[in-house]
């Protein structure tokens, strides 16, 4: 019987086809290839929905489809492309294809209606990006995932640099590419390390799930039940931690975590729909998704988990403080993106797998919404992004205002919008596992909790400055109108941002006793046994020693305290923002921070510090290495050759080419030889 899984390759191939169409025929098509892209992503969305329904019915799919390197004999390595579909994949496929579709529609308003040139190039980039991201999501092995991870990075480069004639975008695209590449370098070493480690114990060592999958082999190895593993002389626990951290390098680069987060704010130079699709909802999600995909591996290493949690918690707070002072709409959103991905890493690190996936889902929706809303505002403001030039847009563009408000409430974490449920669950998970005896999780939790206040503050500072009060410039008094193709995606996402949190309302379930945690069920049952959240829970408990404690009135009490705490802080942030900025003539209150503001405006001098690392440390080191190479290595080789030349130059004078001389030498030699033989042989 033909089922949804037989069409699974088409989910990625359809957008790829739209990439080819836009690239080669886009000039001759009425909308520059947009319609092909919309049709393709709509097709992907329908297929993803069908796949999700099949998965809901208990189906999973994990097949190698095409082997491109086949090893013969034992211990030989085979490399293949394949598809792995389990509940996590199905959920992510739905998110990516939905947002890709909405972004394509929105682009009609943002790019086509604004008479941009180079539209085929734009839609080709979007198509290739969507195809690579979807293929990355259902990759069944880590090498295939790496390839599409890189393709996604390439598309990001192409799209950030879409307006390549200006200096900002082209430099930002290079920065994004190089910074993420720096992380991917470690990822590549990690991939090679994983293959080298597990090839002795499995014929398909790179797989995420199924026979011979590396997380399962690693788990078995820790029980001592696997032979043929090559851990390069380390204890297996240590070596698995090292491998996990190497792969984490790619995750930190792609998901813009400290210290490789610097590319993301600059990436806002790209077109706004691109920011929505790539730098908020999907590509940046690739890093977090990768950790979730191979969570069975990370769950084996308490050290790696603690590092992930600390990086996540720190990034959440660090980025949120920078978002407080920014003046441009998209910059605020960029820092909030970094901060929100910090929450996901915090959840993954502290054992909250479901919470991380939940926050990934809700964040994809509300951040895409906020970016598209920002895009709508930017169209209205004739591409002026400074919030201090806006104000009073609420009456002029009600659709944008209400949907943006929905997204902002979700981002700030106000009940009952999506972000409240997911962020609360992230903090709850890290709190209980921290209380279970892990101080690293407690520190990470405290940073995450503090960031909630800043999130509420900067989100509503942005809302009030943009939409409330009186228009502060002529453009804001007479904004440019937007059409249906901008409004419809906003409405879809606005409704989703308000409601998507309902798929997992843990605190409400505890209060009412009614079963409301559907995402938990989705990830815990069915699917491939080793990749369910239940299996991860067992691993976390047994191997990594992550335990939960509920000191505050049992599980219900602790959950309610945690939810109340984060909601209270978020509301406090919103109220402070309201009292400061929801007035007729708001002033820059952050000026009162003095030198702290300067520090924040300069992003803690992270860029300067990285440039210094490159020019002040790496370049001199390279010069020293160059000196060594030119002086010592080349010097030895050149020295040997010049000595040979000199000696040879002297020796050739012996060759006089005068026959008599040659004959004399020859005769003398013969006579001497005869004399020597005679003396030694005793002839005389």
């Amino acid at each position, binding site marked *: 019987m033909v089922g949804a899984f037989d069409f699974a390759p088409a989910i990625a191939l359809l957008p790829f086809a739209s990439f080819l169409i836009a690239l080669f025929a886009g000039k001759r098509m009425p909308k520059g290839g947009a319609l092909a892209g919309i049709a393709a992503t709509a097709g992907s969305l329908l297929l993803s929905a069908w796949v999700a329904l099949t998965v809901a019915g208990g189906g999973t799919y994990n097949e190698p489809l095409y082997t491109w390197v086949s090893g013969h004999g034992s211990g030989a390595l085979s490399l293949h492309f394949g598809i792995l579909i389990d509940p996590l994949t199905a959920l992510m496929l739905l998110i990516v294809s939905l947002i890709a579709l909405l972004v394509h529609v929105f682009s009609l308003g943002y790019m086509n209606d604004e008479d941009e040139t180079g539209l085929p190039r734009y839609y080709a980039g979007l198509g290739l990006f969507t195809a690579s991201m979807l293929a990355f999501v259902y990759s069944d092995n880590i090498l295939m995932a790496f390839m599409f991870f890189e393709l996604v990075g390439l598309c990001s480069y192409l799209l950030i640099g879409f307006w390549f004639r200006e200096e900002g975008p082209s430099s930002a695209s290079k920065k994004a590419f190089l910074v993420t590449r720096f992380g991917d370098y470690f990822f590549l070493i990690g991939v090679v390390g994983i293959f080298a480690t597990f090839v002795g114990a499995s014929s398909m060592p790179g797989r995420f799930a199924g026979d011979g999958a590396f997380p399962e082999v690693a788990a078995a190895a820790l029980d001592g039940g696997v032979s043929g593993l090559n851990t390069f002389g380390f204890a297996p626990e240590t070596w698995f931690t090292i491998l996990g951290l190497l792969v984490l390098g790619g995750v930190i680069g792609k998901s813009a975590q400290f210290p490789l987060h610097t590319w993301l704010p600059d990436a806002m130079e790209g077109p706004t729909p691109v920011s929505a699709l790539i730098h908020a909802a999907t590509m940046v999600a690739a890093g977090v998704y990768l950790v979730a995909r191979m969570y069975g591996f990370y769950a084996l290493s308490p050290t790696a988990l603690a590092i992930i949690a600390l990086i996540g918690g720190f990034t959440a707070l660090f980025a949120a403080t920078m978002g407080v002072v920014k003046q441009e709409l998209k910059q605020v959103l960029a820092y909030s993106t970094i901060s929100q991905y910090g929450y996901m890493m915090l959840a993954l690190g502290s054992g909250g797998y479901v919470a991380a996936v939940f926050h990934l889902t809700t964040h994809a929706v509300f951040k895409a919404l906020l970016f598209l809303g920002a895009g709508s505002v930017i169209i209205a403001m004739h591409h002026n992004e400074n919030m201090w030039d806006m104000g009073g847009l609420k009456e002029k563009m009600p659709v944008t205002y209400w949907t943006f408000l929905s997204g902002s409430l979700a981002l700030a974490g106000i009940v009952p919008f999506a972000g409240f449920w997911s962020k609360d669950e992230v903090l709850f998970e890290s709190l209980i596992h921290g209380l279970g005896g892990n101080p690293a999780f407690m520190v990470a939790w405290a940073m995450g909790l503090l960031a909630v206040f800043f999130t509420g503050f900067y989100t509503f500072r942005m809302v009030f400055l943009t939409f409330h009060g009186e228009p502060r410039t002529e453009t804001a008094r007479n904004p440019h109108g937007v059409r249906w193709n901008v409004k419809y995606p906003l409405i879809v996402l606005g409704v989703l941002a308000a409601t998507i949190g309902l798929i997992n309302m843990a605190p409400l379930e505890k209060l009412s006793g009614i079963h409301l945690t559907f995402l938990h069920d989705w990830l815990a049952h069915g699917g491939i046994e080793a990749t369910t959240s239940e299996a991860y829970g067992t691993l976390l408990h047994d191997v990594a020693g992550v335990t939960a404690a509920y000191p505050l009135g049992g599980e219900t009490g602790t959950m309610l305290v945690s939810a109340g705490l984060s909601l209270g802080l978020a509301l406090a942030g919103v109220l402070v923002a309201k009292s400061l900025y929801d007035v007729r003539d708001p002033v820059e209150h952050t000026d009162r921070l003095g030198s702290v503001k300067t520090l924040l405006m300069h992003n803690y001098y992270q860029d300067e510090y990285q440039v210094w690392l490159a020019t002040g440390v790496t370049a001199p080191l390279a010069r020293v290495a160059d000196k060594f190479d030119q002086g010592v290595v080349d010097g030895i080789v050149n020295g040997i050759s010049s000595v040979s030349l000199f000696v040879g130059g002297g020796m*050739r*004078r012996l*060759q*006089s*080419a*005068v*026959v*008599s001389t040659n*004959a*004399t030498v020859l*005769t003398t030699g013969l006579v001497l030889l005869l004399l020597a033989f005679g003396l030694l042989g005793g002839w005389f």
Partner: protein
Amino acid sequence: MVAMQYYLLLSAAIFCIGVFGVLTRRNALIFLMSVELMLNAANINLVAFSFQYGNLTGQVFALFVMALAAAEVAVGLGIIMVLFRNFADVDVTKATTMRW
């Protein structure tokens, strides 16, 4: 019958004259003649020993050497002609253009 030693002495003397010619003269034709002297010194040795031991192999070998010497002269004269054509002289010490 002449004693064996005299043949050998004659042969050695002729050979030394040949070597002396090669080492001291610069004329290519004299060179060639000196080489002929050395070859014939060897021939005398071959024939003398052949005669002494009653074995004809040495005499046959001497005939071969004569044939070889004829061929050598043919080639040698050719080389000398080319030498003269290039240097307008048959002085062997002048042909030093191909060194270094």
